[in-house]
């Protein structure tokens, strides 16, 4: 019964989201929705890595960037069609995710975070300095409009639909994944890595899996961003961007996919609403973050999260 209800809710949400452009005619708002979609894809995948497997990766922007650069280079230099470029972007992001995941598999906790930060910085610096490959600080411009079969995606509204397809693909596959055996293994690792390993869960393998699956979606989001923005530069894939994603995930509520979207929406709308107060924007955003987190450590929607009761069992000794 409950399962049926969930399916109905999701179908309704999908239908509503596709009908949204017929209510909102303003292209400014549709542009913001597109941003929400990009960040939702990124944060959902980051939530899989961070919220479900407890790998704090602060280098997610690098995988986003890898996807974006792959698509940009394939479309401008090799004249690929968009769809294969999209898939390849995801695959190459997975490739780098596997590389990072396997090489760091013996490194624990915070050191993983350090390496992910450093990886992100290395990516950005290489893209900034390897001018013949990536165009340096200017980046790659003039990425052609994508075409899927006969659907030529040019207007803001078309991009909204494309982003929406990617977003629902991400959301539905991830929520199925989280409920599967794989997802349960991830959650076990999050709750207690040592206990999980004694229960026969191959923690290293599952951590690598979780990380590279997350990277796949980041690559897709990057690919979408490249064609949507028609130009990419290393300044879009900085450490700040990775931090922003982490903030959105935590603000929404870690370990809850639906809540993540609320975090994205709050952060992006806060940036838009505070735009007139340009000089104090970061100050206000910082205040919101601190106040919300101090008051509700499990995020805006995370208040209703079941995780709270599970986490209470932790005693203070365990560090």
């Amino acid at each position, binding site marked *: 019964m409950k399962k049926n209800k969930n399916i109905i809710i999701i179908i309704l949400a999908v239908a509503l989201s596709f009908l949204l452009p017929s209510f909102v005619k303003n292209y400014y708002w549709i542009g913001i929705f597109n941003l929400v979609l990009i960040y939702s894809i990124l944060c959902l995948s980051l939530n899989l890595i961070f919220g479900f497997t407890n790998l704090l990766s602060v280098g997610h922007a690098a995988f986003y960037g890898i996807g974006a650069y792959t698509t940009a280079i394939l479309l401008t230099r090799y004249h690929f069609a968009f769809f294969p470029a999209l898939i390849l972007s995801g695959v190459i992001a997975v490739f780098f995710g596997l590389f990072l995941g396997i090489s760091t598999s013996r*490194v624990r906790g915070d*050191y993983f975070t350090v390496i992910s930060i450093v990886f992100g910085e290395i990516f950005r*610096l290489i893209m900034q300095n390897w001018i013949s490959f990536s165009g340096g600080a200017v980046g790659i411009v003039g990425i052609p409009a994508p075409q899927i079969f006969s659907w030529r995606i040019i207007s803001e509204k078309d991009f909204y639909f494309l982003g929406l397809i990617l977003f629902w693909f991400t959301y539905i596959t991830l929520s199925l994944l989280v409920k599967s055996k794989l997802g349960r293994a991830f959650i076990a690792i999050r709750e207690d890595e040592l206990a999980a390993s004694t229960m026969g869960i191959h923690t290293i393998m599952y951590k690598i899996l979780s990380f590279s699956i997350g990277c796949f979606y980041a690559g897709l989001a990057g690919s979408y961003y490249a064609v949507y923005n028609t130009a990419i530069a290393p300044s879009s894939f900085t450490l700040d961007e990775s931090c922003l994603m982490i*903030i959105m995930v935590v603000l929404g509520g870690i370990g809850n996919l639906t809540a993540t979207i609320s975090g994205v929406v709050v952060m992006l709308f806060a940036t838009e609403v505070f735009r007139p107060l340009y000089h104090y924007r970061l100050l206000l955003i910082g205040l919101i973050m601190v106040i919300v987190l101090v008051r509700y450590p499990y995020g805006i929607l995370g208040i209703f999260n079941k995780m709270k009761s599970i986490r209470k069992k932790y005693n203070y000794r365990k560090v």
Partner: protein
Amino acid sequence: MFTEIFVVGLSLGAIYALIAIGYSMVYGILKLMNFAHGDIYAFGSFICYTLLTKYNLNPILSIIIAMIVGGILASMVERLAYRPLRGPEYRNISMISALGVAYIIQNTSENFWSRQVHFFPSIISNPFVSIFGIQIPTTQYLTLGIVIIVVVTLNLFLKYHKIGKGILCASQDIPASSLMGIPINKTISIVYLLGGTIGVIGGILYASSYNALSISMGFSGTIVAFEASVFGGIGSINGALVGGLILGLLHSIVGFYVSTAYRDVITFAILIIILLVRPKGILGRYVEEKV
């Protein structure tokens, strides 16, 4: 030429070490990556800058005031943003609240002092002196001296003073040391105070030896502190010193001999290799996980 670069790298590393010490101490006690650390020391350095240029205060006095401001700011941040989120289940969350604090401080100092690079006056006259035939500005030697004094004092303080011993205990085990009668909240506040104060010294030394000060120094300072403490083994003061010196040497040697564009890439790559070979850093020790 190499000796000059070596000494310059050493004094740069000494500054990095000062910035890293506070960061590493906080990590050692709370296992918290303090993302606001860099912005706090940048704020303190800007206070010093204003006192020096606008009010023409005595340099020593303005440095002391800046240190006090940095320390108080750091412990205030701890009180408001980190203390409510203390405890292992909130570890990752308190890191994000630290990021929020970083935004707040950054934005506040941006509104006071704007984003441009400011000219920071040299605190002492800065002639080139030649020792053993090496031509180096005086500040570089001064920096090394200050770092040695700070590290030695800090080590003595931790070893012999009552509060210092309390800090060491708390970094071993917070609940146990609170059972032994160590005032945990006060101890942690003092750690932040010390970290902020020492960081401000580092910031002022950096600004006065390069005659430049900007807001972006804050965030890059956090990264530097981060790298240096990880190099040496995060959580220990001597580790931060060693890591800072290594990082400074790497920056100056790679920057001079290889390329400035790829300087950070190369140091980051070396950092990753060190972490993969010695996951706890150069001076870090393994602590078995308790079940």
